[in-house]
Each structure stands twice: as structure tokens, then as C-alpha cells.
């Protein structure tokens, strides 16, 4: 199972990005192979439609969960129709901490 995490930087020590559509990096974490992949977000500076475009980016990697600080208005219906789970974490946490929690 793959999980997408929004990140402010491209290292494991980076803090979780509180925005989904315009985050700096997406971390694709595979819970089976324990591998991580950092993808720079092409929609970082998009004027509009960053949310749906970012959903496309993560959905193309077949993720089943997205961890972020907040999700925009246009996203819920899209993500629900793709059967992807949204997890909202309000506290600023490191990517390594989130991966550790996902391992439980």
C-alpha cells in the first residue's frame, strides 16, 4: 500500500507541508517495500487548479492514503471518487515521524 505525504523539503527531516495542492514535494511511501520517493510538485506555483492537478499526480502513483495539513475545497469529491483516504495532521511533524507512525 502506498501513502502520499506532503513535504516542505526533499529530506526525511523536512516538516510536513500544511497545504496539499501547492506543497513543495510529495513523498510516496510504500509500506510493503519501505521505500520512499520524493516528487517535486509541478503545481507549486499554479494560480488555480493546483489541488485537482496534484490529485492527478498522486493518483497516478496508485496511492491509497494522503497525509497533509489541509485539503482544499475542490479535492474532497475527487479523492472520494478515487477511494483515496485523506488524513489531516494539524501539528508540524517531520516526515520521518509520520512514516514511523504509519508503521505502527
Amino acid at each position, binding site marked *: 500500500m502506498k501513502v502520499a505525504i506532503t513535504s516542505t523539503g526533499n529530506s526525511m527531516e523536512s516538516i510536513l507541508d500544511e497545504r496539499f495542492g501547492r506543497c513543495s514535494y510529495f513523498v510516496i511511501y510504500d509500506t510493503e517495500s519501505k521505500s520512499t520517493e520524493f516528487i517535486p510538485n509541478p503545481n507549486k506555483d499554479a494560480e488555480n487548479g493546483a489541488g485537482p492537478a496534484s490529485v492527478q499526480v498522486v493518483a497516478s502513483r496508485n496511492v491509497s*492514503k494522503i*497525509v497533509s495539513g489541509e485539503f482544499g*475545497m475542490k479535492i*474532497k*469529491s*475527487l*479523492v*472520494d*471518487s*478515487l*477511494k*483515496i*483516504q*485523506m*488524513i*489531516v*495532521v*494539524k*501539528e508540524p511533524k517531520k516526515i520521518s515521524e*509520520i512514516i514511523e*507512525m*504509519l508503521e*505502527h
Partner: protein
Amino acid sequence: MFIKFMSPRIKKLRKVLNPPPIKGFKPYGPEVDGKKLEPVLLHFEEYEAFRLCDYDLYNHHQASVIMGVSRPTFTRIYSSVRRKVALAFAEGRQIVIDGGKVYFDSDWYHCSTCKCYFNNPQKDVEITECPLCGSKSFAGFNMENVQHESSGMIQTEYCVCPSCGYKTEHIQGKPCSTELCPECNVHMIRQGSSNRCRNSNC
């Protein structure tokens, strides 16, 4: 022709709160036994429109807000479902509920161990643990209490008295100007309306 290449406007995703408990309906009786008629395909959004209108007894305006479409679109979906159900009844056809441009609205949960919020996109699968930390101490969470988004929610409107400021809840379909303020006996106006001095006595 130029028009030939224009694609139609993309349909909005319709929100479906409750997926149907069954997959469809089958007619029975000696007349239909053994006959192979093409079943009638009912979309999920049509099922939802039918349920909201004739089971939950919402009017078209309220139901359209619940489904996240405009009122005219809702009425079109509704008239389509009535035709389809009538067709199935009159010709003794099966009804299959499937497909359509929909998404199933999901509920939100809050985990008290890791303080995260999460939703359940698959209604038929029950959540047993927090997807982030795996703890079992989570509870249902109502997003509407926190986010006061104007999108889709019907707001209560008020009639106010222009001279003393007396406020009463506006009744839909009854113009505020027909109501009189019980204290100063002047015509009421809608709260926030711009045409404040339409009446001579305000």
C-alpha cells in the same frame, strides 16, 4: 463544421450520501418469466435524487443543495428517474442501479492519540483503527461544526425592522414586507438587503 469538434461541458460530480442497499429490482409473475427484456439502468445520482425527494421528502431546492448540483439540474435528474421507473413498471423490466457521475460522501473521524483527522472513502469497509498511528481511540467527527463554509449549506435568513432592529426568522416564500414589526408597526425588510428605503415609512 467548427461546432462538430466542441466537447460538451463536463458534468459536475454529484454527491451521494447513501449508496442503495440493493443492486436493483426484478419483476416477477407469469408474464415476465422466461422473457429476456433489456434492464433499465438507473444511475446512482438518479437513485439518490429519487430517495431525497420521495423518501426523505426534501423539495428540489434542498435536495439539489445536498447533491451539490443546481436546482434545474436536479429537476432534470429527477424527471429522468421517474421516466425510467415508469418504463420499468409499465414494460415489466428489471432495474439495475449502477454507474453515473457520482462520488460517495465520506464521514470524518478524529483520532485522540495522534490528534489527526481522517475520512473513510469506502463506506462498505468499517474502520477499526486509526490509519496513521493504529490506535483504537477514534471517534466520529462532524466537519460542519468546525468549518463554516458557505458552500452548500442553507443559511437561516432574518427579517429585521428598519427602525428598531427587531429580528425574526424569515419564512421562505413570505415576503418580509408583508410582516409588521410588533413594536413600531412598520414593514420589515430582509437582513442585509440593499433596498432599505423602498417603503416610505422607513
